[in-house]
């Protein structure tokens, strides 16, 4: 046998040679490489197009003034560029949203995964996910016209028409499905043997859910929280409509506030002359937003990895 193949190699034609060309392979390879390249270049492009005007901005305004002063009036005759009011605005609204979304989202997830009958789950999970499909502009008007008018005004008569509280509450409602759905996935992936083990020790349903299933699913749940928080920080429409466009250095949620995103949206859609310092400030704020979200993601990756190590 080996002698034969050796002789046919010697004779010129190797029987193991490729006889059929495989064009399909090359095409697939090309298309996939292109797809990967497009997303890579897009990210790169975004970073460059944000970075260059930002650097020009910081050539005129010092980073210290930008980060640590408290008046944000880029459109005034005597403009000031202290970004802190936008950061506190973002922070206050995000904290309110998170305070709404984490308990309700995690609660829904625990209910769906541990308590609901299979029939109830089949109806409830898609219903919850419909919430995620509602356009944010609808949420924005819901916050302004309904929550502020009919829910908050009777409780807090001094509340402003545009206020952080209604925007935060509604943004919280908006991210419930994200947190609930991803947390539920993580809990459903916990092996049923762990539940059996807890029940066999005389644990109640609540003790099983809270002390075994939730800790076992913690890395997935933390990832769900971080994704929800990132969505809240980046959300634009609800805050633009319901929280107003006044930069306001305050922690009082009954007042109007501007966030980083709503400044970008408002200034970007206004008639700011291209190349002016006001124009470049949009990108500086965008870069800051990008940096904050990036740090959040790094933290979440760390957390997820930490719990993975502990539990596997």
């Amino acid at each position, binding site marked *: 046998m080996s002698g034969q193949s050796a002789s046919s190699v010697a004779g010129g034609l190797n029987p193991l040679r490729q006889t059929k060309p495989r064009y399909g392979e090359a095409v697939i390879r090309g298309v996939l490489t292109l797809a990967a390249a497009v997303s890579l270049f897009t990210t790169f492009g975004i970073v460059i197009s944000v970075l260059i005007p930002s650097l020009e901005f910081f050539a005129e305004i010092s980073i210290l003034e930008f980060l640590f002063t408290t008046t944000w009036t880029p459109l005034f005759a005597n403009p000031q560029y202290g970004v802190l009011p936008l950061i506190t605005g973002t922070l206050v609204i995000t904290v309110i949203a998170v305070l709404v979304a984490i308990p309700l989202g995690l609660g829904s997830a625990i209910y769906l995964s541990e308590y609901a*009958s299979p029939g109830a789950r089949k109806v409830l999970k898609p219903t919850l996910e419909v919430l995620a499909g509602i356009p944010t502009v609808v949420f924005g008007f819901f916050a302004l016209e309904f929550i502020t008018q009919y829910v908050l005004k009777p409780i807090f008569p001094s509340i402003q028409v545009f206020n952080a509280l209604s925007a935060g509450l509604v943004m919280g409602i908006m991210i419930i499905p994200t947190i609930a759905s991803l947390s539920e996935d993580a809990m459903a992936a916990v*092996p049923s043997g*762990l539940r*059996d083990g807890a029940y066999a*020790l*005389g644990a109640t349903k609540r*003790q099983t859910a809270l002390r075994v299933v939730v800790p*076992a699913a913690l890395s997935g749940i933390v990832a769900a929280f971080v994704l929800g928080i990132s969505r809240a920080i980046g959300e634009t429409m609800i805050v633009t409509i319901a929280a107003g466009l006044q930069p306001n250095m305050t922690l009082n949620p009954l007042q109007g506030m501007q966030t980083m995103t709503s400044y970008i949206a408002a200034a970007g859609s206004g008639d700011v002359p291209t190349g002016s310092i006001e124009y470049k400030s949009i990108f500086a704020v965008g870069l800051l937003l990008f940096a904050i979200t990036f740090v959040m993601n790094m933290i979440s990756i760390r957390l997820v990895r930490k719990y993975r190590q502990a539990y596997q």
Partner: protein
Amino acid sequence: MSELHDPNAPQATSDLSNTGRMDVSAVLDEGRASVPDSIREVVFNLDDVHIFYGDFEAVSDVTMQIGKNEITAFIGPSGCGKSTLLRSFNRMNDLIPGARVEGLLAYHGFNIYAPEVDPIEVRRRIGMVFQKPNVFPKSIYENVAYGPKVNGMKVNMDDLVEDCLTRAALWDEVKDDLKKSAYALSGGQQQRLVIARCIAVKPEVILMDEPCASLDPIATAKIEDLMKELAADYTIVIVTHNMQQAARVSDRTAFFTADVDAKGVRHGRLVEYGPTRSIFTAPNEPRTEDYISGRFG
């Protein structure tokens, strides 16, 4: 019957059956072989027990008693309802939608399926060890402490953890690593940790569903030694597909099989139950004989 004992059967088959029987009776535990024919103190009394999953009757008409401080083995081919029956002893079947028990299943004379009975109380007294070692994603210490904590037991937790790990023959291997994740342990160690976790709530009965199925022979031998030691204080019921294991560790053996009814549905039933020595050396039922001699199952 006569066909099954045909001395002219093909040589290979009779060799196999002979060795199968010889091996099993050779490993019978001498100490345990002296168990009396009748049970001295009854822990479980089953009378005409039927277990259903929805309309499907998985276990049919089981009548038997389980003796205190004895090791009772359930053997039989896969799918004959051994796990189903075992899970009905501590109401784990309640967790499966549609599962239902009919007939009398009494624990010290109390029907554990009576309406006033709390399944959580049942499970606290009747612990369970599963086929796959299902340690919690917590530290070794927290695994043992979980049961006492959820049951609100007022104890010195450090002492209890040490005591249970010692009884489960694991203390010496883990005493310096109590804060480490239980997932860092080997499969055999994890199964001993599960046993320690189980005895931490001070049950009277330990149910074990193929506890060695995922373990290597050395780890299996350790668990078997442990079971014999625990039998001094606990009543143990073990499901095993390993007949040698049943012969090695148990006082009594129950052989189950699945009968096919007129509609072609398989129902598990108890074929024969008695002291392990008689089941393995002098079974009354030809089907038991066939199974333990390796002719089917």
